């Protein structure tokens, strides 16, 4: 008897469903606008995303292990052909080690697949804002919310702390946000159970999608531009500030202020880092806290953006936790 049709739908993980749903929706929109090919081509060509590079590197390390195993197997085969014993035969004719390594690579690629798909999401937000919002910005709302909730602008208040050294230090922390999430995901994959690795990726994918959706709903350029008339001091940094500026300008989309994903993603991943190991959490805590401070000090975000980032992180953490409990069969079990 054949299974009823809903059971024949492949069982995907939360991150896979979400990434596919976004891709289909964004793809249809771009197709309708006739802008799919150049945009996607451009993003594939850029390929500088740290996640893609880090995971390509990991796949390369696994391939290197496979190559070293291949050298050993070839040597064993040569010994066997030259009249070797049973040990050589076992080495030459067995395929279980290769199969295990290949399964490992395949499993890793699948675990990370939502990340690869999500790479397209962030840059597409700009086109979606163009298509749905035009040139509308909500900076005014965010400024009013800051005034009502916090009585002023933290980015202006933070001017009293401006110094070249602090600018350099916080620029480094802000820049490290590009490096630290892939490293946390990698570390969780290496030291934590696989179920936690998958949960971390699902959390990352969900927060990215929700964050980018909020960019589309609430496009804002941030205080650096909207409150420029209120600043009286230059941030006066050096090489690190310049490196940070170049990298952030090259990778960001222009209307990505609300919510702060620098805060949201790092807060979420900090929780997963602590779950993987206390030492890992403590190791990444200082640059992450520096990153939170930098969002205000470097004038990238309003205070309300930070609050939204933290709330989003908490909501995503809980959602992913509930999802993985509700559908445990699609998440890999922790090793015995």
């Amino acid at each position, binding site marked *: 008897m054949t299974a009823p049709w809903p059971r024949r739908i492949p069982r995907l993980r939360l991150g896979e469903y979400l990434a596919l749903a976004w891709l289909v929706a964004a793809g249809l929109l771009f197709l309708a606008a006739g802008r799919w090919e150049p945009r996607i081509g451009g993003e594939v060509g850029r390929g500088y995303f740290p996640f893609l590079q880090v995971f*390509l590197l990991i796949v390369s390390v696994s391939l290197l292990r496979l190559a070293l195993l291949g050298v050993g197997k070839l040597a064993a085969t040569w010994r066997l052909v030259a009249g070797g014993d049973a040990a050589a035969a076992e080495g030459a004719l067995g395929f279980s080690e290769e199969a295990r390594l290949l399964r490992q690579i395949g499993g890793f690629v699948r675990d990370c697949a939502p990340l690869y798909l999500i790479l397209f999401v962030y840059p597409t937000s700009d086109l979606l804002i163009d298509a749905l919002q035009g040139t509308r910005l909500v900076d005014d709302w965010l400024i009013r919310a800051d005034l009502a909730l916090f009585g002023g602008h933290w980015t202006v208040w933070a001017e009293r702390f401006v110094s070249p050294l602090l600018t350099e230090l916080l620029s480094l922390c802000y820049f490290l946000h590009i490096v630290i999430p892939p490293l946390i995901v990698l570390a969780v994959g290496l030291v934590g159970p696989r179920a936690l690795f998958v949960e971390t990726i699902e959390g990352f994918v969900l927060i990215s999608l929700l964050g980018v959706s909020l960019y589309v709903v609430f496009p804002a350029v941030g205080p650096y531009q909207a409150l420029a008339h209120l600043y009286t001091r230059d941030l006066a940094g050096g090489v690190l500030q310049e490196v940070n500026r170049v990298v952030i300008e090259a990778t960001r989309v222009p209307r990505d202020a609300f919510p702060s994903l620098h805060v949201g993603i790092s807060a979420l991943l900090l929780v997963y880092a602590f779950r993987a190991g206390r030492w890992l959490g403590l190791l990444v805590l200082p640059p992450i806290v520096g990153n939170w401070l930098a969002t205000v000090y470097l004038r990238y975000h309003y205070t309300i953006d930070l609050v939204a980032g933290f709330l989003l992180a908490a909501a995503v953490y809980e959602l992913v936790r509930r999802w993985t409990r509700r559908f445990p069969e699609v998440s890999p079990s922790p090793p015995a």
Partner: protein
Amino acid sequence: MSWEAAVELAVQRAGFWLIHLNRVAALVLVALVSLLFFCRMALLRLSRGRLAGRVAGYPPLPRLDGMLLLSGGLLAVSGYWALKPDEAFYRTVGGAAFAENDFRRAITFYEPLVHWGSRTPDVYHQLGRSYLALGRCRPALSVLDRAFALPGGESADARVLSAVGHECVGDVPRALSDLERALALSRVPEQQEAIRAHAEGLRRRFPRPGA
């Protein structure tokens, strides 16, 4: 160059090289793994007479042949991708060398693209220009001829380059015919004027016998 611009350039270059090396490493490793597996299967297959009866667990022949074919196919595909130059990378680095008038270096990056059958006419044009700048007229003509065969590969500029090449090897009639073709392709009055002047100069310097 200001230090801010130097930092920007250094960051971009570092990222660019990292991405390229990462890609090359992955492709080369896939090809290496395929090669090692293929060699192992080939060795087992070739030694069948000696091993089949003696060694327990020797794979059945159809399975061995299947794996040999599979690994051979994988080796061919992965080897192709591992050896094929990364066009975006080569074009960018070659273009940077060309912009700095470092034609020897530009040639080292453009030549592999042409050898691997790039479909981008600009690559052929820039290589042709680089050859001409170094006085290597025959290779330039050969490359430009290949460019003309590509869709969008024939332009007024490229025909003028070809004329310069033919003039360089002493084939004045072909040079004049290139200039006529360039004139037909050109849509810019200033360029048309320059082409006419070039052709006129050639005719004066090399008058046809009996003319």
